[in-house]
């Protein structure tokens, strides 16, 4: 009888503890291990932060560029993208946070262990998507194939998904022609707080960046599945195969002053000088800055907002 009582009470205690432990585990999410979050799903861009501004041709705001990068960017002519062999080239990995689209993410599991092998972020019509390998594989050798998307591995760290991209083809970090070399690497952090996913990009490039380019962008969990895939079909856009590649002499770019004049912005800021990223610069230009005239057109909302009520003015 004594043994029965003891066993019964021990079983009861074990049940209580097991329930408590179960509740603790359940708080971390269904089917998601502690320290992780549900990453797969459709994430719509929130669109309240501006990194590409108006896509005017000479806009390097918010970047710390080397002189070589500035020269190359100033020689870039956007009509290069109308060359038939470049129309479907797409943009590199960094465009995930620079482009206007959302993220459709799926998880690939090992059918036996049920462990996640990779996350795939689907491509858009002008972005090549990204596979984040979660299975602990190593990055390939330095001389392995470089692609637009690059090679990305990830791991969970401190409640965030940390990823690292290498092996990117030489490309751009802005659509305005700011270059990124094939020696560039990108560190990513994905933070989830409720239904908001914040993607942090830290891009390093020993050739074209004086300091890492740091961009963060918010996405909101979408109940509607997103799908931006649209096969690129090249066609004639005014350039025949074999035509010269459109470009400018760096010191004769006809659009050099356009963005500066539009918003009364200082030249060194528009051209991506390092000092313009720090608060001291704000103090430096305080006495010389002239604000632009009052806004009369296109003054309001631009971006994708989740409307709560009423029409957006």
């Amino acid at each position, binding site marked *: 009888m*004594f043994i029965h009582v*003891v066993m019964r*009470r021990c079983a009861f205690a*074990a049940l209580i*503890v*097991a329930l408590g432990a179960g509740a*603790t*585990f359940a*708080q*971390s999410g269904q089917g998601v291990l*502690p*320290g*992780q979050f549900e990453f797969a799903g459709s994430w719509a861009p*929130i*669109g*309240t*932060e*501006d990194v590409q501004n108006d896509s005017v041709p000479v806009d390097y*705001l*918010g970047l710390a560029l080397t002189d070589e990068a500035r020269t190359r960017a100033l020689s870039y002519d956007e009509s290069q993208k109308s060359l038939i062999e470049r129309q479907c080239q797409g943009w590199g990995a960094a465009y995930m946070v620079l482009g206007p689209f959302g993220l459709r993410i799926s998880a690939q599991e090992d059918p036996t262990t049920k462990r996640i092998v990779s996350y795939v972020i689907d491509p858009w019509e002008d972005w090549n998507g990204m596979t984040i390998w979660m299975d602990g594989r190593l990055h390939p050798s330095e001389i392995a194939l470089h692609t637009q998307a690059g090679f990305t591995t990830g791991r*969970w*760290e*401190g*409640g965030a998904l940390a990823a690292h991209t290498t092996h990117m083809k030489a490309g751009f970090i802005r659509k305005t022609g700011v270059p990124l070399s094939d020696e560039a690497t990108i560190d990513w*952090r994905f933070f989830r*707080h409720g239904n*908001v996913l*914040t993607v*942090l990009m*830290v891009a390093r490039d020993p050739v074209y960046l004086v300091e*890492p380019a*740091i*961009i*963060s*962008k*918010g996405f909101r969990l979408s109940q509607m599945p997103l799908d931006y895939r649209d096969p690129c079909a090249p066609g004639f856009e005014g350039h025949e195969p074999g035509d010269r590649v459109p470009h400018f002499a760096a010191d004769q770019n006809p659009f050099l002053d356009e963005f500066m004049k539009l*918003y*009364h912005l200082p030249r060194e*800021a528009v051209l991506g000088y390092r000092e*313009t990223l*720090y*608060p001291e610069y*704000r103090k430096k*230009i305080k006495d010389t800055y002239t*604000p*632009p*005239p*009052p*806004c*009369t057109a296109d*003054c*309001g*909302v*631009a971006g994708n*907002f*989740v*409307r*709560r009520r*009423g029409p*957006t003015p």
Partner: protein
Amino acid sequence: MKRAFVSRTIKVRAASLWLEVGLVGLVVAVVAWGMPASVHAQASASPSARDTAPIDLTGYWVSYVTENWRYRMVTPAKGEYRRIPSSQAALPIINGWDPAADERAGNPCKSYGAGAIMTVPGRLHITWQDAETLRIDTDAGTQTRLFRFTARASTSKPTPSWQGESTARWERVPAPDRGGSLSVVTSNLRAGYLRKNGVPYSEQTTVTEHFDIAPLPDGGQLLLVTMTVEDPQYLNAPYVVSPHFKKEPDGSKWNPTPCSSTW
């Protein structure tokens, strides 16, 4: 004989009770040993927020302005509110913005309130005011924010202020590598501006922030603040931004400046 039997029964029952208590305690101890430390921390007798911080936010941090540069580093044109989901009710305020009038009315800090202060280029100095209160001082506008981890004992609602009332909690990571995030909700604000050029938020505004830390390639640290501003009066949708800050080794570049409604 009957008395001896009763006495022996009591002794056996007492012994069995102690044995049961011991066994239950042993089971609980063994299972609890396998739980994450965060669970221990939550269960133990109220250790302070400072002592149980999963990440260290203290120190000096400098704004690194790579997004919304045109709206943060210079004062945008009057009437422009691009990328802010302002409501119809906000338009008269946006179009009627008069910085000189704000200055004259003694309100030069309208663009330094909790709805905007983390996006104002400047430096943060983060310290523990006490074991349950994290303090953020900003050199831009010389503002102070207090993040309280325990509710303030007060019967009356405080007067609305630029920085309002902030309640904070740690969001811990129940995993071997630990880490976590600071979650802060701020309300009871004075009406202010989301941007220097008079894009308004009202006293009904709630600001929800998450503070995360990420390593930088050079060994430094980045503080990422994901902030969501919700205002039923002047916003049609939540306004979400994520300013970030680089950690600095010391306060040698700390340079407090007063609020200004014109710059």
